[in-house]
């Protein structure tokens, strides 16, 4: 079983009461959206799910085995993370950056082979970045860099995608393209967990939702059950109205 589960998980957000422990069971093919106000711990949860940060309590299980009992390299072959912040102090081309996604599959003495290059090239093609392959990442715009990050994980071809704000900095067309790509990953049997700021993207693309409140409370379930106006108003502390467009509910903040 290829599930990603949490048992009694409380993420470690400094200075916050424990709140409700998370007992999530996420299966491949599902597309989970994590919603919540600033500072609710969305990014912290994502990092905890990836095993990059120790939880305050509880545990994360990947394929039925506790995450700390996996080797980092084995985790990286199954689980890819798109971070919100990036470090490019050193020069690197777009192609080189996509290629580091192949790192978990290569042994120390091995150089990237034809297969790895083919994976990276295909990833760049799917994110409209082929023409930028020789460019230095530091010369790209914010949205282009965001797509490079997605391409790196696509080259990594994990079973689980953990994505922090996939549409950050992206123009409208690439927002749609990116969400379509993530949905296609879920259709192809991957699991997707993403933090989202845009309620409407969540309403339109996610099969399941997890709402994280700023006091540590949480609730989760299939998306249609979670998209209650009152619950979402309480989540953001913001009055909302709901209309329907293009086959999905659309939430508009009211004055």
């Amino acid at each position, binding site marked *: 079983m290829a599930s990603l589960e949490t048992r009694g998980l409380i993420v470690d957000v400094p200075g916050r009461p424990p709140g409700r422990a998370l007992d999530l069971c996420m299966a491949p093919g599902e597309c989970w959206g994590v919603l919540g106000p600033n500072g609710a711990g969305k990014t912290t949860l994502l*990092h905890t799910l*990836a*095993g*990059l940060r120790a939880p305050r309590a509880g545990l994360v299980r990947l394929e039925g085995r506790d995450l700390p009992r996996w080797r*980092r*390299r*084995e*985790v*990286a*072959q199954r*689980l*890819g*993370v798109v*971070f919100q912040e*990036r*470090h*490019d*102090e*050193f*020069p*690197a*081309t777009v*192609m*080189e*950056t*996509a*290629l*580091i*996604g192949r*790192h*978990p599959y*290569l042994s*120390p*003495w091995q*150089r*990237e082979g034809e297969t790895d*290059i083919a994976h*990276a090239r295909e990833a760049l093609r799917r994110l409209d970045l082929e023409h930028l*392959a*020789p460019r*230095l990442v530091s*010369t790209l715009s914010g949205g282009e860099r965001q797509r490079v990050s997605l391409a790196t994980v696509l080259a*990594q071809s994990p079973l689980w995608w953990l994505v922090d704000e996939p549409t950050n900095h992206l123009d409208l067309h690439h927002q749609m393209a990116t969400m379509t790509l993530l949905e296609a990953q879920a259709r192809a049997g991957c699991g997707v967990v993403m933090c989202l700021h845009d309620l409407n993207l969540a309403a339109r693309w996610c099969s399941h939702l997890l709402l994280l409140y700023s006091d540590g409370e949480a609730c989760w379930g299939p998306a249609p059950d979670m998209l209650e106006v009152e619950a979402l108003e309480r989540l953001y502390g913001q009055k909302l109205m709901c209309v329907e467009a293009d086959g999905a509910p659309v939430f508009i903040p009211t004055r």
Partner: protein
Amino acid sequence: MSDAEARRRGGSSLAGPLTWLALAALLSQALALALGSVALSPDALLAVLGGGGEPLHRTLVLDLRLPRALAAFGTGALLALAGALMQVLLRNPLADPYVLGLSGGASVCALLAMLAGLGASLVAGAAFGGALASMLIVFGLAHGTGSWTPTRMLLTGVVMAAGWGALISFLLAVSPAERLPGMLYWLMGDLAYAGSPWLVLALAALALVVMVPLGRTLNVLARGGMQAAALGVAVRPVEWTLYLVASLLTAVAVTTAGSIGFVGLMVPHMLRLRLGNDQRLILPASLLAGGTLLTLADTLARTLIAPQQLPVGVITALLGVPSFLYLLYRSR
């Protein structure tokens, strides 16, 4: 496959740049052997290296110049390699063993040993101990209560270096005048007492063999600890390895030739501007280029105002600063 094509494909062609750097290294050795108080023609030098030549030339080249030229090469290689590793460790192109206070600690201990009137080998031992002690202090303090960040470590190192600098000034101020020239030479680097070159050369080769298999891991680490962990790198053990190896290389380099600045900072940075940041290329390239630079600098140091000698650190700085500034200005 051309370099540009190789970089576009993501890998980097190792052979091209490394061949050129190896040729430059050989050329610098030949210059170091041929130039000096008695200059040798290429023919005379070849005769000596072929096993013949005049006895005077044989003594000059084989007993005097060759050990020193090799020691210069090895020391420069160690410093550049240590700098390249430190920069990846701290994710900061400005890091180098000197910025982190390692050479400061070595200098203070070496000066104390000189003040106490100890012999050259004990001064070297004191320098080695000082570098290692400084490394332990910086790493221990940067760890603090557990949270370790590159910025915190860089700051700790910079502050330690400033502290060592003050101690050095204090020691110089209270030292008797007749000891000052020796101390100043040591502080600015001097290869005249380098001794046998084999330790530095062997260590440089060993470090390369240990670090090059880690090259791709270091490439990933350069993009941040979190990103590296997400791609399967065991971050903390790799960082410890980096720090220990870089510190050891620095300690041995400082012990061999005193405190020589700029090589560790400049050489890897200049190479990155030209060759990109694939550590599998940058590490061996740093070794060759660092060795070449220090060999040339030392040759100039002992020939410019011969028979007097200059401290080699002065030459590396005088050569390095303008070329570094030019490259930085020209870079994208």
